[in-house]
């Protein structure tokens, strides 16, 4: 592990929530990953996968049962809270802002908590407001802003602290399509321009696909995939097939396919039965052909299915659940 290049290194992080005598839930289970400086990493996972708990443990807002967090080569626990000068965050489900203060007052307050308050810093705040199209809302109280503007203000406040490692937990939650696109574009621009390290947690696959270079998929508190977004997409592109049969689907085909290939589906199309199947191994294509031959299915068309992050994600999560 090259510590000097790592903005963040998480080792064996575990967090269990105990509910009195009623049992316990392992929210984060032996999680380990590294994030290089300047990298934009997506943290994906269904509800309860442990994304927010992982982020809060890294930030020191929750105390993990075990594990080790290193931020820019410094041990986070022994250097807490000083280490927070290197991190900032927008946290999911929180307002993150004072609604009775204006956009500008919020920026000044939260950045000053990080000791960022020089005239040059203020010029940078102006730059951020311009970038996020919030210039004309500068002196408006946050409570009077739309949900999208509030969210953008939260992100601006996190960025204004000039911390080199930024966590954005569900930054596009509740945003309309236009604002979400705008936020994504600004995040891409900022990661290129400033070389800051971002960890973006989101349910929104498009955000991860659009903004992140690497994705970590979590399920049931564990990391199930840690790969480059482009590599992951290529991998799944070669595995996802769309097959159109001549005529309706033979009886028992769907049951057989679902049994053999997790996540497969059969639908009746205009031309004939349309099969969507994900093949995880190279030799699976031969098994598929054997199955089709066995039910006298006549193939009319075969092609790779268009793949996006959502399909990759669903496939990974389905597969993970089928193993449990």
């Amino acid at each position, binding site marked *: 592990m090259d510590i000097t290049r790592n903005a963040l290194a998480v080792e064996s992080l575990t*967090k269990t*929530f105990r509910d009195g005598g009623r049992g316990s839930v392992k929210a984060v289970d032996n999680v380990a990953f590294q994030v290089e400086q300047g990298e934009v990493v997506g943290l994906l996972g269904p509800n309860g996968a442990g994304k927010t*708990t992982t982020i*809060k443990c890294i*930030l*020191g*807002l*929750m*105390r993990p049962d075990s594990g080790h967090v290193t931020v820019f080569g410094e041990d986070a626990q022994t250097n807490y*809270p*000083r*280490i*927070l*000068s290197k*991190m*900032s*965050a927008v*946290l999911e*489900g*929180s*307002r*993150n*802002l*004072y*609604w*009775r*203060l204006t956009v500008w*007052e919020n920026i*000044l*307050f*939260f950045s*000053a*908590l*990080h*000791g960022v*308050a020089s005239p040059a810093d203020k010029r940078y705040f102006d730059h951020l407001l311009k970038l996020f199209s919030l210039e004309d809302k500068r002196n408006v*109280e946050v409570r009077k802003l739309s949900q999208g503007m509030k969210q953008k203000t939260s992100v601006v*406040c996190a960025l204004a602290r000039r911390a080199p490692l930024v966590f954005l937990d569900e930054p596009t939650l509740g945003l309309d399509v236009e604002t979400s696109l705008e936020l994504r574009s600004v995040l891409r621009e900022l990661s290129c321009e400033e070389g800051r390290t971002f960890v973006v947690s989101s349910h929104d696959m498009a955000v991860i696909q659009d903004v992140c270079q690497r994705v970590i998929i979590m399920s049931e508190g564990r990391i199930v995939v840690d790969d480059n977004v482009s590599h992951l997409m290529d991998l799944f592109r070669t595995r996802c097939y769309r097959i159109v049969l001549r005529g309706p689907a033979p009886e028992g085909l769907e049951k057989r396919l679902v049994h053999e290939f997790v996540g497969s589906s059969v639908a009746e199309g205009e031309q004939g039965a349309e099969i969507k199947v994900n093949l995880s191994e190279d030799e699976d294509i031969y098994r598929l052909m054997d199955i089709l031959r066995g039910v006298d299915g006549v193939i009319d068309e075969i092609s790779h299915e268009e793949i996006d992050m959502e399909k990759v994600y669903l496939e990974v999560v389905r597969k993970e659940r089928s193993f449990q």
Partner: protein
Amino acid sequence: MNLGTVFGAVFRRELTMIRRYMVNSISSLVSVYLVFILMFMGFQSMSNYVKTGALEGSLEGTIVGFFVWTFTIYAFSDLSWSLISEAQAGTLEQLYLAPCGFKWVGACTVISNFIFSLVPIMVLLFAMMATTGKWLNLDFVSLIPLLLITLLGAYGFGFALGGLALVFKRIQAFFQIMQFVFVGFLIVPTRLAWAKFLPLAVGNDLISTVMVDGARLWELPLNDILTATAVGAAYLAIGIVIFSCCENVAKSRGLLGHY
């Protein structure tokens, strides 16, 4: 981390909040004044029971007691209520991300609030003095240090209840109870040896001596000043320890961002 920058930020935030919530600030002050008026109207019948150190039963003593009680309530509730309202608003976790540590942000909030509470409480004091016609000695050089010493205990309670609020969330009933408990601390006669170890009691006596008898800080018994300081510091320390324990529990259970 420059604590001056943090203090400046917290001070400006508090000032802005007071301006934005001006109606609320004034109405709470008016309601405290109305309570005093009711007390004043019933003063003659109550005076036999209201004792403030050496000034048992006097109207002046009651004004001083009410003045100190108001300061106490401001000090105690500012800290604990602000923790609850920050948790409700969802900003508490952001304050916990301050590199100086949350305790310093809390300390800056306490100092700012003390400064901002001086003006309305002084207005209230003048209103009380004008209403009763009893004009007390306002030697600020003596009063401010004594007030700070006296309020240490109240801040201790504020830290303790704030900590409990982090873990148990809805503990508003405690706040109501504490207001009456503080009245008890203020009226308990300090000639009783054990009463000296209660928060507020000795400090309140010293403030009474300054405001009613016109004594200066350096004319007061050094023993009493040291006792008031030690007792206040001890309650503050206990409050901070309770807060730290509760903070640990809240972090372990992941409760900081919940309300």
